[in-house]
């Protein structure tokens, strides 16, 4: 039998099958075209508004007078600049830890509420979310200032004789940042608690576990993905935070974002600003990569 004959026989033997396959391929390619078309605007926008400036910024960081990598060398070599990076990281970690610790009970409560109470509570979480960070930061300044309501209350209660210095220090920065970032931690944790199958908690109870045992052995591990997501959001956002630490912090509360601002607006050294941005970006990418591993493990745990 020749090859031509074989192929002809196959054509005869499987006409329906072949037709189906061709149809399927056509469908698949159509789907691919539609997908591409839908993605196009976003891709164009991101290329023009993000990728291109990023490349520009990167070349800028290499255009120092002292040589290609001198801007990076200057930042990494400087004790002061290194300290600012470390301080920014420590601030981000503290804010993240406190935010998650505050967010979990709040999210837990949210997941227990029903109907009207739930709506009310959700709005309490979301409304601050919709108000400008600037406005919220200024509110904190008003609250914490020398003659502000916090100080007058403390004095009225007799806790202190004279107004405390509440503003322009670590306390104010932490308060402001946690306040702004808390919803980013609450919402993913709340979502993961909603996904939790209540029968698992019943099963745990039936098997003899106390409330605490159930929480530690079932609830917490099964909402770990939500905690990781919330923590990642808060951490990344606080790494790049600018307005709040600038308005509420003192001279020593310097963050990388403020450093970059200083390079651009005061010292007019664009390559340094660009290099600082890239170092921060690099740190964020490394942390994201690590977090992504944890997140994917977390998701593996919850999907059945």
């Amino acid at each position: 039998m020749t090859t031509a004959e074989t192929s002809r026989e196959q054509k005869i033997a499987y006409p329906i099958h072949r037709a189906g396959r061709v149809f399927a391929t056509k469908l698949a390619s159509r789907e691919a075209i539609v997908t591409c078309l839908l993605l196009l605007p976003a891709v164009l926008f991101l290329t023009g508004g993000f990728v291109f400036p990023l490349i520009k910024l990167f070349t800028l960081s290499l255009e120092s007078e002292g040589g290609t990598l001198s801007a990076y060398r200057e930042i990494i070599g400087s004790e002061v600049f290194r300290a600012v990076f470390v301080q920014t990281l420590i601030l981000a970690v503290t804010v993240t830890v406190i935010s998650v610790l505050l967010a979990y009970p709040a999210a837990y409560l949210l997941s227990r509420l029903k109907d009207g109470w739930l709506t009310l509570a959700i709005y309490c979480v979301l409304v601050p979310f919709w108000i400008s960070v600037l406005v919220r930061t200024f509110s904190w300044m008003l609250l914490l200032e020398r003659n502000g309501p916090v100080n007058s209350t403390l004095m009225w209660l007799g806790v202190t004789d004279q107004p405390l210095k509440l503003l322009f220090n670590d306390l104010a920065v932490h308060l402001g940042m946690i306040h702004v970032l808390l919803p980013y931690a609450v919402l993913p944790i709340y979502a993961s608690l909603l996904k939790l199958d209540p029968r698992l908690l019943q099963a745990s109870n039936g098997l003899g576990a106390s409330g605490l045992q159930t929480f530690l052995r079932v609830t917490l591990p099964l909402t770990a993905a939500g905690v990781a997501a919330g923590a990642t959001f808060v951490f990344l956002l606080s790494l790049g935070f600018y307005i709040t630490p600038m308005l509420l912090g003192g001279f020593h509360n310097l963050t990388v974002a403020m450093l970059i601002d200083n390079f651009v607006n005061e010292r007019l050294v664009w390559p340094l600003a660009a290099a600082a941005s890239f170092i921060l970006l690099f740190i964020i990418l490394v942390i994201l990569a690590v977090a992504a591993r944890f997140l994917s493990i977390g998701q593996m745990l919850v999907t059945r």
Partner: protein
Amino acid sequence: MRDSAQGNPIFFNEVSKSFDTVQALLPTSLKVGPGEFLTLLGPSGSGKTTLLNIAAGYVSPDRGRVLLGNRDVTHLPPRHRNIGMVFQNYALFPHLNVFDNIAYGLKVRRIPEAEIRTRVRAVLAMVQLEGFEERRIQQLSGGQQQRVALARAMVIRPDLLLMDEPLSALDRQLRKHVQLEIRRIHNEHRRTTIYVTHDQEEALVMSDRIAVMSQGRIEQVGTPTELYREPKNVFVARFLGESNLLPVEIAERSGREISYRVEGESRIWSMQAHDGMPMRNDRALLLVRPEDLTPAPENEPGIEAGVEEAVYLGELTALKLELATGHSVWMRQMGLPPVREGEKMRIRWHPQNVRLLKDTGRAA
């Protein structure tokens, strides 16, 4: 681990429960003996799951008391009851492997590691899943998950084993197999068991006794045979097995003898009286199981019927017959001579195998 402990009896004393405005369970009393396998059988909304959840402690009754052994557990939370529960969709912990799922109840009881390992291995052998310790739950088939759930409930040596439609997610073939498996495990360990299902066949295969429930109350409790042969009312008769229900008139009742006439027929039949029999002027129904209908021999009394449908089921033949009144009945017999649709035949039943029931007009 064939321990001699058999679990405790459980006693429900006039327990009732409402959810909002719905009375899920009317005041109900029921006793399940030590080592007994009792099935709560009923359609959805009959209150069977509510009663099970009251036994587990997930639902607190509005009124009445629950005694487990000689403990009053009415308001005791589930974790203090020492119960094993198998949930409808198993509720296995997705973040734990098979071993840790089964060991869960032992770990929270702070039982030593070594003992946990031997006990988990023993129950895994019991459900025939040896070597599955490290498997993730997601890697198991439905039937395997079901067995892990059973092992997790059994490993704590519960006073009471509760199962909430544990086979409803399995396909028919597997369900049959697992039914016998659960039966075997129960025979071996004799834990007091309450099993909830809406599948009458499952109930008949597995149970020592069945409580048929409907609309928040228990209609009848008894062994599978009792319920099948001596149903107390039309609901139970219809719910268990297939039934022909013919409207009859009670002609006479004298002592242990009762005579009746099938509507539209002239012949008077008589039978021994039994419990719960309708009174003379009640509307009554005659229950004849399909296997109790037979063709009437030549010179013996019978009822005229026309063959509407003939279905051959291998060794059995099922005939749908139409009576003079227009009522249809099913006959199911072995070794019937071949009949054609449209043929006429005379049928009868053995007076000992039928029941007279009150026609309450309640829909099944």
